[in-house]
């Protein structure tokens, strides 16, 4: 099963290479993400599959906007891009010469590949210990919220910096669009009506993922991205840019600080050791849920800000 899917995966990665037209690349990319997430799922990691499936929506949208902008501007600058015919010899040279490097590299890689032995030292430790150490049911969530919460904090920090970077590097300094400006996205009564039904389900499901992250697959990141996807729906329904983006950024920073504080008190200082034994379980679960909510909200805020920046400001 997994091999069939993986062969598809290789094929999808390969057909992007010679493609020159933007929209096709986006479509191949979307299917590539889809198949990747499916393979992750089949490899026994639904958490990562969910994260990839949710995040691929966002990355696809970013690429769509980027390609669209590029084509429009390129049309202003150089005229029709299709008219520039590249000679066959030049194209062949462009694609064949790199093979001279890649193929030997691949061969070398295969030649020096280490044996397939897998050390399960740490895996066994985690599997046997996580339930009593952390108190979760989902081992993955337990690891990134307790054992390795230090990493997770920096990951949250990357999102904070990314938003600063995006607003600094953009050609437009302002964060919000003036009132009354509408997007030029197509509006259709039936679509709006149906998305209105779907959007609450999405929001509810995102919240469910966040709250239930320590028991079932999912958690802060996946749920947060799902909640952010709700705002894509909202954008498609109301068709206006009325997000208080600045406030959301402030909120995100506050959430980040809170997450750091909770992590410091909960894990770094080892507050669990002071809790009486009969309340330990309660303490552990409430820590996991609280942390999941904080991280979920933080990721949701970051994704909303990124989405609105791209859709409302970068596209101008």
């Amino acid at each position: 099963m997994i091999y069939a899917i993986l062969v598809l995966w290789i094929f999808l990665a390969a057909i992007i290479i010679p493609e020159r037209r933007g929209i096709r690349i986006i479509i191949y990319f979307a299917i590539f993400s889809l198949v990747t997430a499916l393979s992750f799922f089949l490899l026994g990691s639904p958490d990562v599959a969910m994260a990839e499936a949710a995040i691929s929506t966002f990355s696809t949208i970013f690429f769509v906007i980027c390609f669209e902008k590029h084509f429009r501007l390129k049309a202003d600058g150089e005229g029709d891009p299709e008219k520039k015919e590249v000679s066959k010899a030049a194209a062949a040279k462009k694609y064949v010469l790199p093979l001279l490097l890649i193929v030997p590299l691949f061969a070398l890689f295969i030649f020096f590949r280490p044996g397939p032995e897998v050390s399960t030292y740490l895996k066994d430790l985690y599997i046997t210990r996580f339930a009593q150490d952390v108190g979760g049911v989902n081992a993955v969530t337990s690891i990134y919220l307790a054992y390795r919460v230090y990493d997770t904090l920096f990951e949250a920090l990357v999102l904070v910096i990314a938003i600063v970077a995006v607003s600094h590097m953009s050609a437009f300094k302002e964060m919000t669009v003036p009132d009354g400006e509408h997007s030029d996205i197509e509006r259709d009564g039936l679509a709006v009506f149906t998305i209105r039904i779907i959007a609450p389900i999405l929001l509810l499901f995102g919240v469910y993922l966040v709250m239930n992250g320590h028991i079932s697959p999912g958690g802060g990141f996946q749920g947060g991205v799902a909640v952010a996807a709700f705002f894509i729906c909202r954008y498609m329904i109301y068709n206006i840019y009325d997000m208080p983006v600045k406030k959301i950024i402030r909120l995100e920073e506050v959430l980040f600080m809170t997450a750091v504080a909770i992590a410091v008190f909960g894990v770094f200082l080892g507050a669990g050791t002071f809790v009486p034994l009969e309340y330990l379980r309660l303490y552990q679960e409430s820590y996991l849920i609280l942390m999941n909510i904080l991280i979920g909200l933080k990721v949701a805020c970051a994704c909303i800000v990124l989405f609105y920046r791209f859709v409302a400001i970068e596209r101008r």
Partner: protein
Amino acid sequence: MLTYFILIPIIIAVFLYMLACGKKGRAIAIIFQTGFVGAVYYVFTLTRQEEILTNIGGYDSILGIYLREDTMAAAFVLLTAIFFLIASIYSFREKDGRLFWFLIFIWQGASVGIFLTRDLFNAFVLIEVVTVVVAILIMFNRKNRSIYDGMFYLMLNVLVIKFYLLGLGYLYRMTGTMDIVIATEALVGMERSELVLPYALMMTAIALKCALLPMFSWLPKAHGSPAAPSAVSAILSGLHIKCTIYLFLRMQEMFSTLISAYEFFLVIGVLTGIVGFVLAMAQSDIKLILAYHTISQVGLIFAGLSMGSYYSHIGGMYHIVNHALFKGALFLSAGSIIKAYGTRDVYQIRGLLRRYPGLGIATLMAILGITGAPLFNGSISKYFMATDASAQMNVILIFMSLGTIISFVKYGSMLFGKSDAEPEAGVKVPAEQQIAVFALGFMCFFTGVFGVQSVQFLFNTSVTIDRLGYLEKAGIFFASAIAGFFIYKYYIKTSKLLKRLRSFEMGFRSACVCIGVFFAALLLTVGLVQYYY
């Protein structure tokens, strides 16, 4: 305890950004940085007795992440603290302070994190943080080509971190851990041939981040970027590149029981050093001269670290510190000079010593340091490197130092003379900038005079300097200084080849090809050696 050295700068950064205190921020920054140096110094003295270990979360065994500060890490962290203090003093009046202090503080926290962490995946996350931060800082003022430079830097670094991650995956599969110390123990019983691939993958990533020979094309763009504040260029050259050299040392240590590609890195280091100063000679932009010189000095450091003897290792380590000091002084003073003269062309700036004596003296001290003049710090580290080296290696070292001298004769010509492009009388260099530059320049002199004591203080090992040998080195320095002056005067100024080299630049695709070539070369070298031994 060690966690807070990383978290507190980051919390302060976000705090400052949230409250939008641009002007108040700088006061907080200076106060905090001073306190930070004190705290780091306290921990530094503690590490002289034994290494400090922090188990985050207190989980049993290796389930959590460990931070540790041993002698080497302590020296680097102390360097970081001092450097950021001086950079903060220098950029006291930075425009757009809110964003600037936010990024600087996060950079500081993440750099300290890289030095302290024992977990390789944590190092990856921190490197990503630093990469994005640096990409923003490179295009801080968003001038001309800075966006292209920033994108080039970011994409190349993001690409190469994938190599690192893949190598880490192999390492995890074989050892079942990502902790450096535990992995070292687990690697002991392994086959050498199995480790070749993870070693090559991770070393390729680190070599790009250190700008070794075929992959240095991003460095001049990033370090010499006209859009970055001067303090940022100084930190980039002085400190940021040391993070990856530190990781290189840790990796070498980890793999050393089975793989030691010392010869490979020695050759690459020497070549990098030579190519670096040749390209530096060709430039006329003062920031670019310094940026190419960073490449050259990194090559020298790599050569020193890879020679394999005790003294050369000490020399390499000490040169890391020295390079931070004099390159910091040079970059900071270059920033002030550019602002005062309004130009970046080295041929138009003249009479620095006369117009701005403070800056001029600091620049002079830093130049004497980098060229290895006696009594300055460069001479100490170069002396250590040459102590146990073979005869050929000695010649190569002298040649490299001659190249450095030649290009710094060009740089030093700014100090004297007279030109039309001199600034108006009213343009003044702010006092705090002069203080910062002078502090670094003076440290070059101080660590030179008290070289032995500094090495003992920083690295906790005892060294001795043979006076006669040191005098001999001094003689060689003066001879090569004179030779360098004449070569500069009669060849470099008129050379057409160098003018052509000035516009040398690599595109993104060529840089990718270079990564592939370097990876293949490393793989082949390390892989073939196993058949000989």
